[in-house]
């Protein structure tokens, strides 16, 4: 398990220096390659199967009209939404876990997904709203939940179990609200709500891609810029403060970004469970490097989600099994394993 990460410093005569963690770099490159491969495979999967070579040719703009329609209009947006949702969840999860210093401090456990669900259900059940309104409702639900956790758990910073316990409480309340809303729904709305609640990429088109892409384009650089401070905060607030990190401000910016990323991802694909929990942990085990591992977690999230979608389509046929079911089964197993090992290590 414990193999050292290898740092390499690159220096120029002008006094510039970069520090690279070779192992993390390799992990990031491999994960990106895996995500792209899974994406290509996913585009080729479905009622009309398209070989990978043709998919690549079509993406480059050299396919037949028929292929072009299927690949670029129908399936590419779905894969892109998958990649972006996975990346947002992976990054959001890594941020939450790093700030709470607890692998359980991830959005799934904290009730953010349930909050988004409540927002979406309000729109579906009480307002019979359009798809766009559902998305906005989910976004609002996630943000409100994030804010309430912040208000309830924040006392001179967020600390470990306090944060997790408050989150679990909020999660339980939201689950109850969701149950109530479902009982109020008529059959059609209820069916729509349940599909949304499982987390699915079915029927995602370019309208979902652009807002998510824009949000990621703003937040990912912002968050990565704060990674240095977050790394110092691993050693406790006092040490980070002493090293010149503005701890409260850094934490606020990062938490708001994490809530936005998670809420937007959930709004786009429904509450795809456990990606935010598992991606950072798996990434960390691959890089074997201390620190928040933000970029590897982001890549891991994207890979996991698209791979899970490919598995569900491949095993159960096109659009039969929502991706959230696959991530739920895999991630739930992982959560159990995590609880057992944490318990054994005496941390629970």
């Amino acid at each position: 398990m414990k193999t050292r990460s290898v740092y390499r410093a690159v220096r120029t005569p002008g006094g510039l220096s970069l520090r690279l963690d070779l192992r993390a770099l390799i992990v990031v490159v491999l994960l990106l390659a895996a995500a792209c491969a899974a994406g290509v495979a996913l585009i080729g999967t479905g009622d009309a199967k398209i070989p990978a070579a043709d998919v690549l040719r079509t993406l480059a703009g050299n396919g037949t009209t028929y292929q072009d329609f299927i690949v670029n209009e129908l399936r590419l947006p779905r894969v892109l939404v998958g990649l972006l949702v996975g990346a947002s969840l992976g990054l959001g999860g890594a941020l939450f876990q790093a700030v709470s210093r607890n692998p359980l401090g991830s959005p799934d456990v904290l009730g953010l997904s349930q909050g988004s669900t409540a927002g979406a259900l309000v729109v579906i059940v009480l307002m019979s709203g359009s798809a766009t309104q559902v998305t906005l409702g989910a976004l609002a639900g996630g943000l409100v939940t994030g804010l309430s956790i912040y208000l309830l758990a924040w006392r001179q910073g967020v600390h470990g179990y306090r944060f997790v316990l408050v989150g679990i409480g909020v999660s339980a309340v939201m689950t109850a609200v969701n149950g109530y809303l479902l009982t109020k729904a008529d059959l059609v709305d209820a069916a729509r709500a349940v599909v949304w609640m499982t987390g699915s990429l079915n029927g995602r088109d370019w309208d979902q891609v652009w807002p998510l892409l824009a949000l990621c384009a703003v937040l990912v650089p912002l968050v990565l810029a704060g990674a240095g401070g977050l790394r110092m905060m691993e050693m406790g607030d006092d040490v980070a403060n002493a090293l010149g990190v503005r701890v409260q401000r850094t934490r606020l910016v990062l938490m708001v970004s994490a809530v936005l990323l998670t809420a937007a991802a959930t709004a786009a694909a429904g509450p795809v469970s456990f990606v935010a929990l598992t991606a950072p942990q798996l990434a960390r085990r691959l890089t074997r490097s201390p620190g928040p591992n933000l970029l590897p977690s982001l890549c891991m999230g994207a890979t996991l989600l698209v791979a899970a979608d490919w598995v569900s389509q491949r095993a159960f046929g096109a659009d039969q099994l929502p991706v959230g079911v696959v991530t739920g089964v895999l991630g739930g197993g992982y959560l159990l394993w995590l609880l057992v090992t944490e318990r054994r290590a005496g941390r629970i």
Partner: protein
Amino acid sequence: MSAVPESDSKRSTVNRLSAENVTLAYDQRVIAEQLSVEIPDNSFTVIVGPNACGKSTLLRALSRMLKPSGGRVLLDGQVIQSMPARKVARTLGLLPQSSLAPDGITVAALVGRGRYPHQGLLRQWSAEDERVVQESMRQTGVAELADRYVDELSGGQRQRVWIAMALAQQTPLLLLDEPTTYLDIQHQIDVLDLCAELHETQGRTLVAVLHDLNHAARYATHLVALRGGEVIAEGAPNDIVTAELVEQVFGLRCQVIDDPETGTPLVVPASRKARAERITAAS
């Protein structure tokens, strides 16, 4: 120093770090009011006092971890809160009481984190960083542990590693909050020797909170005795540590004798019997 009129010398000197009439409070609980303390440059200042006298709180205020609700802490003539965080971090280091070593971090990597305030986007790991980290590990005697994991080390070794990290920050001022807590006696002395060495050979100004009055008297060049958020006495241990002072600050009857090893004051608590007699006599 000599140019300053005698009567003003205590307040108007140009010491780099001082607290002026600060009120220190956590939420509504006031720990100290109108407290003024000056840290003499190039001193090894030790703050002592009974539990809950505000010594750690004072150190937190001096290191800008706690914002005074009144008064101000000055660093190089500026209010410390108004200075850029990184600039402060290049001037003043702090070894807090509680720090967490991240899982799976090596000694060299942890010490390297002390370079954070000197780094930037385009200056991530300079040759200077590398040199300072090696130097800091050598000074604290952890160079041979460089590739070991911090969580595998003993308490004494770990404390040295944290001190090395604070040294790598290369600050002229270094604050230590109870650096000897949880260590057994030889490691306590070990850490204090290291502090004395850093103070003597590098001219760094050290400020430490210590529990043990005898350690404080032996190692400090300047002692600050606090009780109930007030400075009861300050000065060189030889000048201020007397049986009266110890009784006044700690409420403990004792004898103060010369430390046979160093000639510094050594506090020997009065026997239980002697203290009991005194209580009877008083009543």
